[in-house]
């Protein structure tokens, strides 16, 4: 008993001393690792961190396809710099979805691998909250192909206190996103509702950072837009069905319904139950549900009769109408034999394409963390598969044009018209 105590005590002492040593060692490492900005290289790495397992795996497989397509088109090079790509998984088998620990590990992996100059990710806004401060301290450029949460880049209404400063401990921006934030999408949805003659709107959200955030933004701006939101309910994606909920919003007199969330969180079920309870109700959704998986009955989407009354907003316009979009569509169809790619494929594609073009423009001497970051942040008026855009001072895309999509004859979302939306405070 006594001897054990002594062992433990000495162990603790050794551990304490070691912790002290590590603290010093740690700060030494930062000099060589984090600051690896000055060197140039002829071979660099781009990492992506996306939840490849579980409910969202189909969308993510499409996104990884898009990323690979962009790299293959360039022959694995950006000018004279050869680019390696590694796809990391931020989900685990046990959780079946993105996992905070795994996300942190991916970000640290990017930091410790000196050849990494850019990081594509995360898919979930919640995950980016973890990787952003880590990558920020190492000065690695992070391009998110999917995050829309307001607080990641701005302190506009909808952001929490301390956002976005807490994600950039160094005070310098390292994060950019190529999708517009929810402030803009919320306005676009409200503009649509107004235009379509909705008066009383019921909103359901999936309680996640994206869905709940967007619903909150809509709630804040509804009055301004002349829309009455009768209720905003957080729903459990794993509930058996939403018939009782539908009966409740029927009692509130709702004539339009918005589901703010992603397809994987029970979107089809809730649209169907609401439709059954309120015949002729108009159904709306954001880009999280604007995909063939929800709209195409052949892919397990909504039935045709219901899809006719469904419209959704996406930050892309008709792909065929501008050169970049058309090119992407042709290339994707050729490479994967799929002429209606998941919307996320194009964001993956553009994220990689943007990084490759930036590296090429900077040349080998700027093929390092600092150089790539500087180049990416300076992006202005870029002609891309998404249209013409650049980054503003927060790292947000300047794209504000939203496309309103309806369901076409083939069951896939079809571009209907353009909605202009702006972020007002």
């Amino acid at each position: 008993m006594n001897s054990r105590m002594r062992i433990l005590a000495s162990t603790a002492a050794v551990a304490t001393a070691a912790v002290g040593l590590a603290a010093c060692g740690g700060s030494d490492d930062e000099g060589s690792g984090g600051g690896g900005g000055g060197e140039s290289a002829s071979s660099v790495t781009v990492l992506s961190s996306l939840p490849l397992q579980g409910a969202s795996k189909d969308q993510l497989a499409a996104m990884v396809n898009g990323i690979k397509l962009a790299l293959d088109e360039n022959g694995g090079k950006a000018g004279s710099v050869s680019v390696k790509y590694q796809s990391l998984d931020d989900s685990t088998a046990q959780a079946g979805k993105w996992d905070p620990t795994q996300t942190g590990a991916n970000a640290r992996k990017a930091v410790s691998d000196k050849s990494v100059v850019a990081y594509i990710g995360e898919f979930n806004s919640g995950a980016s909250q973890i990787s952003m401060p880590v990558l920020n301290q190492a000065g690695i450029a992070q391009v998110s192909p999917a995050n829309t949460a307001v607080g990641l880049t701005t302190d506009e209404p909808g952001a929490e206190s301390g956002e976005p400063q807490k994600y950039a401990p160094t005070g310098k921006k390292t994060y950019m996103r190529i999708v517009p934030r929810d402030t803009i999408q919320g306005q676009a949805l409200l503009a649509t509702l107004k235009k379509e003659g909705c008066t009383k709107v019921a909103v359901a959200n999936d309680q996640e950072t994206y869905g709940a955030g967007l619903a909150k933004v809509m709630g804040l701006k509804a009055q301004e837009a002349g829309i009455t939101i009768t209720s905003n309910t957080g729903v459990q994606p794993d509930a058996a069905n939403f018939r009782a909920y539908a009966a409740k919003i029927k009692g509130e007199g709702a004539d339009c319904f918005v589901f703010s969330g992603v397809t994987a969180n029970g979107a089809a079920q809730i649209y169907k139950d609401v439709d059954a309870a309120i015949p002729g109700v108009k159904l709306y959704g954001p880009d999280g549900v604007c995909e063939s998986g929800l709209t195409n009955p052949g892919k397990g989407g909504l039935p045709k009769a219901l899809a006719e009354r469904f419209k959704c907003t996406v930050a892309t316009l008709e792909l065929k109408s501008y050169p970049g979009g058309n090119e992407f569509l042709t290339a994707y169809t050729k490479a994967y034999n799929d002429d209606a790619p998941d919307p996320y494929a194009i964001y993956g594609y553009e994220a990689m394409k943007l990084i490759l073009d930036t590296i090429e423009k900077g040349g080998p001497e700027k093929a390092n963390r600092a150089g790539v970051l500087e180049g990416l942040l300076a992006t202005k008026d870029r002609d891309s598969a998404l249209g013409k855009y650049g980054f503003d001072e927060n790292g947000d895309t300047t794209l504000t044009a939203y496309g309103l999509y309806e369901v076409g004859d083939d069951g896939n979302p079809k571009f209907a018209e353009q909605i202009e939306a702006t972020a007002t405070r």
Partner: protein
Amino acid sequence: MATNTPAAGPRARRFPLLNDQGRERAGQWALIILLLALPVYYGISDLTGDQGNLSRLATNLFEGVSNGTILALIAVGYTLVYGIIELINFAHGDVFMIGSFVSVGLFGTLGLTLATGPLGVVVGLLVCLIVAMVVTGSLNVLIERVAYRPLRDAPKLAPLITAVGFSFILQNVGLLWLGGSPKSIPDLIRAQETIATVLGVEISRADIVAIAVAVPLMIAITLFISRSRMGKAMRATAQDPDAARLMGIKVDSTISLTFMLGGMLAGAAGLLYALYQTNVWYFQGFQAGLLAFTAAVMGGIGNLRGAVAGGLIIGCIQQIADNRIGTQWTPAIVFAYLILIMVFRPRGLFGEQTREAG
């Protein structure tokens, strides 16, 4: 083996608590008050409020019952398996999910679409029902052979982990089969079409189909277990496997039969769920399984009637909570009810008749 006297089995330990008659009776009353609390409260508030009648409450309860039948079918599978080998079969919910997926696959194979005539739909669905039941029944037997039988002499919790393992495997099968998002399927029975309105309650086709399939199945299983020779063997095995073996009952095949029956009911529930919800998802088995397990325990695990009652009660609590309080709180209310029931009736609603206590 000399020390393994029958009297030292699990049954002998029960007596000190069962003798407590007064507490038992008080618990019974508390339980009745508890179960009636929600409907009575909302009934009074409906009558005194601007509603003025009980049709909303009646709708809640009716939909609760029709939802609950599906849960009850799954719960019976849990309870049968628990009754015979005292295993919480965590893979059972996922067997139910496979039942849904098989039925949905068959819709395509048989060419069942919205355009199919009523006769075609009825015949087609009967074929689906039979195939789904056969597939899930066999699957359940297979799981028992591979994952539980080798562990029959192992520490009690070992098969719990293989059950979890199989649950993961089946979920992965479902994920590869139909992808990660919930899939909408053709609404063959026009599920939410109202066919009659009784006392302000709209009765939809889905409600009728669910009750029309589930009730006969539950009667059939009850009769099978109480009347048939094989049912008698099951009850004997459940009561005392060693004695049953000595009496010439083939314990292994009786256990297989139990898994077969449980799996078949899960398959039927799978088809009903698909028709009722018109949506299937690889993860549906997890939540449904959790609730069905709760239903089985609430009713008194190992007891058939209890499982059915538990399923119906949970269905009603869910509907009332969804409609009145908010869907986001529903699981908490269901589980709070479970805890309270356990506090007042530690063996569940129909607890006495289980093998452990009997």
